[in-house]
C-alpha cells in the first residue's frame, strides 16, 4: 500500500478504494497534453468498480481518449462481499465497455495470457484510441487481511481455485520479459516571465479573469479544468472568453464529476502540469472531498517527499 517511487512513475497505492483512479486519469492527461508516448496503468479490484470514482474516471478517460490502461483484478470478493452481492452485472468487462472503450476479460490465472492481453492493450492505447480495460479474472487464496477470519467463503472453493495457481503453472515455462520499453519523458516548457501593469477601474470578476489569463499566458503548463468553464464561460462568468483565447485543450470543460476531475487535476500536477481546477461551488466540492483530503493534502507525506506538486483549486 505504501510503496511509492515517483522517479519510476510508480505513484503508490491508495487506502481509499478507487481513489487512485482519477489520479491515473490526470497523469494520462498530462502525458496527452504534452504528446508524451506514455501509458498510465492503474490496478484495482472488483470492489472499486462499485465506487463512483471508477465510473467518473472511466468516463473522463474515454471521453478525452486518454492513454489509461484500467486493470481490474477481479478476485471475486470485495473484502468479504462476493461479486454477486456487490454487482448487478458481474461481467465487469461488459460494464467497462459501456463507456466506449475496448474491454477484455482475461484468465487472470494465466500469466502468459495476462502478459499478452496487456501488450495488446498497450498497443491499442498507443495507437491513440483512448483507454483500454482488462478484467483479470483471478482469486485470492489467503484472507483479505490479518484481521480477516475468512468466514464468508467455503474452504472447498479456495482449494478448487488453488488447482489453477498461476505460480506452479508458470514455473515449468520459460518466461519472456519482453513487454516494457523505457520511454523518454518530455520536459515541460519553462515559464515565461510576464508582468502586467494595471491602474484601472475593474471588478472582482474581471480581476479573477485577468489572473487566469496572466497565468495561462505566462506558463504553458497551466490549464483550467472544470464544469462549464469553457463554452458557458464559467458559472459566474469568470472564465468568459478564455476558451476563444486559449482553446479547448487548456480551457477544458469537464463532465459533472467533481471527484473525477479534481483527482485528474492532482494527477496532471504529478505529471508536471499546473492545473487550475474550478469547482463551481463549495457545496459541490464535498463530492471531491476524498481527492482533496486523501490525495492532494497527503501525497507529499505518502510519497516520502517525492511528490511535491503544485495544484490550485478555485
Amino acid at each position, binding site marked *: 500500500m505504501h510503496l511509492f517511487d515517483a522517479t519510476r512513475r510508480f505513484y503508490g497505492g491508495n487506502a481509499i478504494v478507487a481513489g487512485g483512479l482519477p489520479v491515473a486519469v490526470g497523469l494520462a492527461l498530462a502525458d496527452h497534453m504534452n504528446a508524451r508516448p506514455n501509458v498510465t496503468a492503474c490496478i484495482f479490484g472488483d470492489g472499486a468498480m462499485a465506487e463512483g470514482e471508477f465510473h467518473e474516471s472511466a468516463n473522463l478517460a474515454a471521453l478525452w481518449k486518454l492513454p489509461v490502461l484500467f486493470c481490474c483484478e477481479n478476485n471475486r470478493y470485495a473484502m468479504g462481499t462476493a461479486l454477486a452481492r456487490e454487482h448487478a452485472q458481474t461481467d465487469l468487462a461488459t460494464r467497462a465497455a459501456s463507456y466506449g472503450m475496448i474491454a477484455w476479460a482475461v484468465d487472470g490465472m494465466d500469466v502468459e495470457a495476462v502478459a499478452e492481453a496487456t501488450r495488446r492493450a498497450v498497443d491499442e492505447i498507443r495507437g491513440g484510441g483512448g483507454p483500454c480495460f482488462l478484467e483479470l479474472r483471478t482469486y485470492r487464496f489467503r484472507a483479505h487481511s490479518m484481521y480477516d477470519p475468512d468466514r464468508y467463503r467455503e474452504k472447498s472453493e479456495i482449494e478448487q481455485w488453488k488447482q489453477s495457481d498461476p505460480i506452479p503453472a508458470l514455473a515449468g515455462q520459460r518466461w519472456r520479459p519482453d513487454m516494457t520499453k523505457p520511454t523518454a519523458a518530455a520536459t515541460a516548457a519553462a515559464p515565461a516571465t510576464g508582468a502586467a501593469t494595471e491602474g484601472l477601474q475593474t471588478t472582482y470578476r474581471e*480581476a479573477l479573469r485577468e489572473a487566469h489569463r496572466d497565468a495561462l499566458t505566462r506558463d504553458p503548463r497551466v490549464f483550467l479544468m472544470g464544469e462549464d468553464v469553457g463554452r458557458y464561460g464559467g458559472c*459566474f462568468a469568470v472564465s468568459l472568453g478564455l476558451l476563444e483565447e486559449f482553446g479547448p485543450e487548456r480551457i477544458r470543460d469537464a463532465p459533472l464529476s467533481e471527484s473525477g476531475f479534481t483527482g485528474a487535476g492532482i494527477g496532471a500536477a504529478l505529471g508536471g502540469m499546473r492545473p487550475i481546477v474550478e469547482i463551481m*461551488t463549495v*457545496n459541490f466540492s464535498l463530492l471531491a472531498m476524498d481527492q482533496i483530503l486523501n490525495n492532494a493534502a497527503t501525497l507529499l507525506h505518502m510519497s516520502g517527499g517525492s511528490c511535491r506538486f503544485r495544484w490550485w*483549486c478555485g
Partner: protein
Amino acid sequence: MTTGAGRQLAAQHSHSLEGWYAHIPGLRVLAPATIEDARGMLWPALQDPDPVLIFEHSSLYNLTGTLPAGAAQVDIARAAVRRPGTDVTMITYGGSLGKVLTAAQTLAEEGIQAEVIDLRVLRPLDDEIILASVRSTHRVVIIDEAWRTGSLSAEIAARIAEQAFYDLDAPIERVCGAEVPTPYAKHLEDAALPQPADIVAAARRAVAPNE
C-alpha cells in the same frame, strides 16, 4: 470555488465550508476579499509547493474598484489590516469584510475606533497580526458567516485565549451564521447571516461589557 450565502440560493448552495478545508494539514486555503487579492493570488498559488484552495465569496463578483498598478502578485502568507483602530479588533475574511468595514464606519461615528483584520489566508492562520492587534486593543470581535460550532471563528478565539488571554479586557465576541440550513426567503436569509448591525452591537458589548 464559490462560497457563501446572500443570494437566495437556499440550503444547498449557501454554505461557507472553507473552515473545513482550513482544518486539513497539507493545504493552503485563501479567501480573496478585495479586487487586488482576486487579481494577485492565483500566480503565487500556482508557484506554491502545496496544493492551494481559493474561495471566492459569491457576493463579491460585481465588486467594483481600482486595481493599483503592479498588483499582479500579492503575498499568500499574511493577513492584512484593512482599517487601523485602537478600541476593538474585528477579525473577518471574504464576503464579510465589506459588512465589517460598514460596521466600523458606524462605530467611528460613535467614537469607537475599530481595527479591521482581513485574514486573507485561512490556513495557515497569521497569528502574528491577530495577536499584535489584540494586544493593542484588548478587545476582539470575530465575524464569520460560517456556522459557529467547530468553526474557524472558534479556532481563532481559542488561539487568542491560549496566547493573549491576559491582554483581553472583555470576553471574545463572535458574530456567526445562524445554525440552521440557510433559508430561501430573503428576510430569513438576512436574519441568518451576520449583518452590520449585529457586528456593531457585538463591538459595543466588547468595548463596554458591563453596560
